[in-house]
């Protein structure tokens, strides 16, 4: 590394970091607001606190399956595709696993289920990318066909695993609970580490560190550490919640910090430009489908693990909930834009809404209406924010430069726009 380091986003002194800016993290603020409203509602009606360790544990547990699926669904969306089949694939995975367990044992059946999910994903991807049929149509087809397959292999009956070693192995997939250390303590340590890291980074880069950017986390961290013996907040994580959190962190890291992530965003952002830059667009998109199919099968088995049984109509419509969560998280349906962490917050919003209705004893009848309205409002806000952003960039730049960049401004464009239509033959 040379001495001359480009100053990273200079002038961002005490301003919010970009990822916390409302236009980037709206969903996080919306979630916070929702939690605050529910907390006030529970407190004012004399119910136990909404943000209690128990309830937080419950919400995380209830989000887990959706959360796992929303991560891979977001990846498919970022790649510029669309997958409707995951609900059926999840049921198929569960039915395969449970159906084969008597003959193959748990691990064999589990492996076959995951492979089956991957196989359906591969089918989706290959048909979409190499045959060139629209992803919506293909996955609508697999959604229906795979559900039919589930009905065939289960003969329309619920599959149940009898008690025994296999049942125990299945249960063990989601059996453990893990109690976190005191979160106040963790947060304190984290803030102190952040302060230390900022000092270290500034010194390595040979620049002076800004006092507020170090002092604020340091003071907060010390305060939290001091208070931690008195304030205790531990969350009991179910194993499925741990799966979800691990997957989110892993996927977020891959998307943010690796070439794989960079190329995936490039693929969704402008497939033709990415292809002409040497990115294996088709392969990335197919892999996204495979990942989604595998995750769906895994979710299906997890879903079946607690009851030890799978209903052939189980997980119906799950794909739409996952898509709704991804959209709430600001993922674009046109590709190239999205974040798994924000999609997860979207999933948390949906689950919290449902959970809040239960906690407040409001009629569950209203749930669907509220969720739908929330989804449309969120999408509307994203659209408006994007439009405003574009208007700003148009104002800062010259509006008439636009025709110059969209083709030949002073003469007719080429007869056959090269590569147009080559992306999807």
């Amino acid at each position, binding site marked *: 590394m040379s001495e001359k380091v480009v100053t990273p986003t200079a002038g961002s002194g005490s301003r919010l970091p970009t990822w916390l800016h409302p236009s980037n993290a709206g969903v996080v603020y919306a979630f916070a607001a929702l939690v605050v409203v529910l907390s006030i509602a529970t407190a004012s009606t004399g119910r136990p606190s909404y943000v209690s360790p128990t309830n937080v544990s419950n919400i995380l547990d209830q989000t887990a399956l959706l959360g796992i699926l929303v991560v891979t669904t977001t990846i498919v969306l970022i790649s510029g595709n669309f997958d409707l089949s995951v609900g059926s694939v999840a049921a198929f995975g569960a039915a395969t696993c449970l159906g084969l367990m008597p003959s193959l044992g748990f691990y064999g059946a589990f492996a076959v289920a995951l492979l089956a999910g991957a196989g359906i994903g591969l089918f989706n991807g290959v048909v979409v990318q190499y045959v060139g049929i629209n992803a919506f149509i293909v996955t609508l087809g697999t959604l229906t066909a795979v559900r039919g397959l589930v009905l065939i292999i289960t003969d329309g009956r619920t599959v149940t695993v009898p008690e025994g070693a296999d049942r125990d192995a299945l249960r063990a997939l989601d059996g453990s609970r893990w109690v976190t250390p005191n979160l106040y303590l963790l947060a304190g340590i984290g803030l102190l580490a952040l302060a230390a890291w900022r000092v270290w980074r500034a010194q390595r880069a040979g620049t002076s560190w800004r006092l507020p950017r170090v002092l604020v986390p340091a003071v907060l961290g010390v305060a939290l550490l001091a208070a931690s013996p008195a304030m205790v907040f531990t969350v009991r994580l179910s194993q499925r919640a741990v799966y979800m959190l691990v997957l989110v962190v892993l996927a977020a890291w891959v998307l943010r910090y*690796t*070439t794989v992530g960079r190329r995936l965003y490039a693929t969704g952002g402008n497939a033709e*430009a*990415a292809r002409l830059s040497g990115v294996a667009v088709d392969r990335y998109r197919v892999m996204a489908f495979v990942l989604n199919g595998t995750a769906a099968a895994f979710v299906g088995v997890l879903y079946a693990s607690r009851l030890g049984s799978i209903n052939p109509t189980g997980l119906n419509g799950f794909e739409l909930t996952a898509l709704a969560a991804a959209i709430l998280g600001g993922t674009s349906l046109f590709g190239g*834009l999205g974040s798994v962490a924000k999609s997860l917050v979207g999933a948390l919003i949906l689950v919290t809404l449902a959970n809040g209705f239960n906690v407040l004893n409001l009629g569950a009848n209203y749930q669907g209406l509220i969720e739908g309205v929330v989804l449309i409002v969120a999408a509307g806000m994203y659209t408006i924010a994007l439009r405003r952003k574009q208007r700003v960039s148009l104002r800062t730049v010259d509006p008439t430069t636009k025709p*110059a960049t969209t083709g030949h*401004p002073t003469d007719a464009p080429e007869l056959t726009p*090269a*590569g147009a239509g080559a992306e999807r033959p």
Partner: protein
Amino acid sequence: MTTGAAGDVLLELRAVTKSFPNGTTALRGVDLVVRRGSVHGLVGANGAGKSTLIKCVSGVQPVSTGSIHWAGEECSWSSPGDAQAAGLATIHQHVPLVPTLSALENVFLWRRGPWRSTPQMRVEFDRLVERLGYEIDPDVQVASLPIGTRQMIAILQALALGAELVIMDEPTASLSEAERRIVLDAVRRLAADGTTFVFISHFLDEILEITDHVTVLRDGRALLDEPTATLDEGRLVQAIAGRELLAVERAGGAGSRTGDVLLDVTGIGTRTGVRDVSFHVRAGEIVGLAGLLGSGRSEILDAIFGADRSATGEVTVAGRPVGRSPRAAVKAGFAYVPEDRVQQGLHPAEPLWKNISLPDLGRLSLRRLLPQEQEERALAARAIDELGIVASGPDALPSELSGGNAQKVVFAKWLYADKPVWLLDEPTAGVDVGAKAEILQLVRRLASEGKAIVLACSDFDELLSVATRVLVVRGGRIAHDLDAQQVTEEELIMLAHGLGAGTGEVVHV
């Protein structure tokens, strides 16, 4: 022609200029007089200002200074609808018809009313068809029709709107010979009937055959404005080529012919009509592909790069065969500057540094897996500095840049990846004069560094100013292989138009 120029003035432009705030001036004081009932030809090289002129006349863009007069009165149309209402219809090269509707429905698409088709429409359709002199089944679905027939439907649409003046932009560019005949006959017939046409075409034989009056545009000026009867091909070609404002001196001995063969292309063919194209490019050589719209220039480059999956033929770089995909081509050492930089070259929502590092991301990354953002930003900063890209910094978005600067970003994507073979498709299209000169300079520099360069460019003067060798492309084939030093722009224009052989050393391949 027969109708002569006797009619009164229908459309008149007085000293019309059009400049864009980014500094590009497309029109520099154009006077134009179109008489009623005439066929007025408008010709000029790409970038001469024809399209801008049409946009101004048809109300798509306002003029900067000067005035437009319609039937004697000054008009200020603010939208194409205004112009249409006044009786001016424009038929663009890519005919905007609704492919899923019938011919009848398309012709009366803009008619208000509750019914998709009425008996009156059919009667009117028959009458229009008779005027046109070309039979079209009113109920046939447009999607099933060849392009030539769609042109006819577009003409019918214009007539149905009551257009007195029909502007046709390159109507025959993508037509077969037979279809071309039909369109030309229809224009002639309607002109005799009183409809006025402004006819834009690259095909000079067509212009000479069908028009009454010709205006030649060059660099935004009307340089020649005469009755067709007084013109011949030679004069037209000369007027089109002229002396370019962009004075890029003819590089004495640009590129070398002695390097090793870096790129060898054998028997390239595509489904889009490229047939049996073979050539080679040496290190340090700039080979120009000269051809008209639709001649197959871009298709050849697409095929070489593997962007066209259906392409056949063999490509080798330094003797090693290259796989048939852009990914393999990039690995083999190709750099590709595509024709449409917005659609094919850039990620408009990603910052410059991510755009620039994309083709070479693997090398810029730790263990080819972890991109080093500091280095990517530094690379972008270097590109901005070295290429003179006007941008706020590495974090600027490509959508904020002007055409020339955006094009430099596309070059920067490949510049630091050390690619030995460069395929450039219209690198100076839609770029202002200053940036154009800089880009051409960059192309020369690349050649002097020993790269092999294939350059497709529709501005032949520009092409000759940098190329070592010129391949004339016509009908998807290489028609001539010429030494750039021994061919003039006029000869090149003639050859590209298929108008006999120039005087240079012409080698038929």
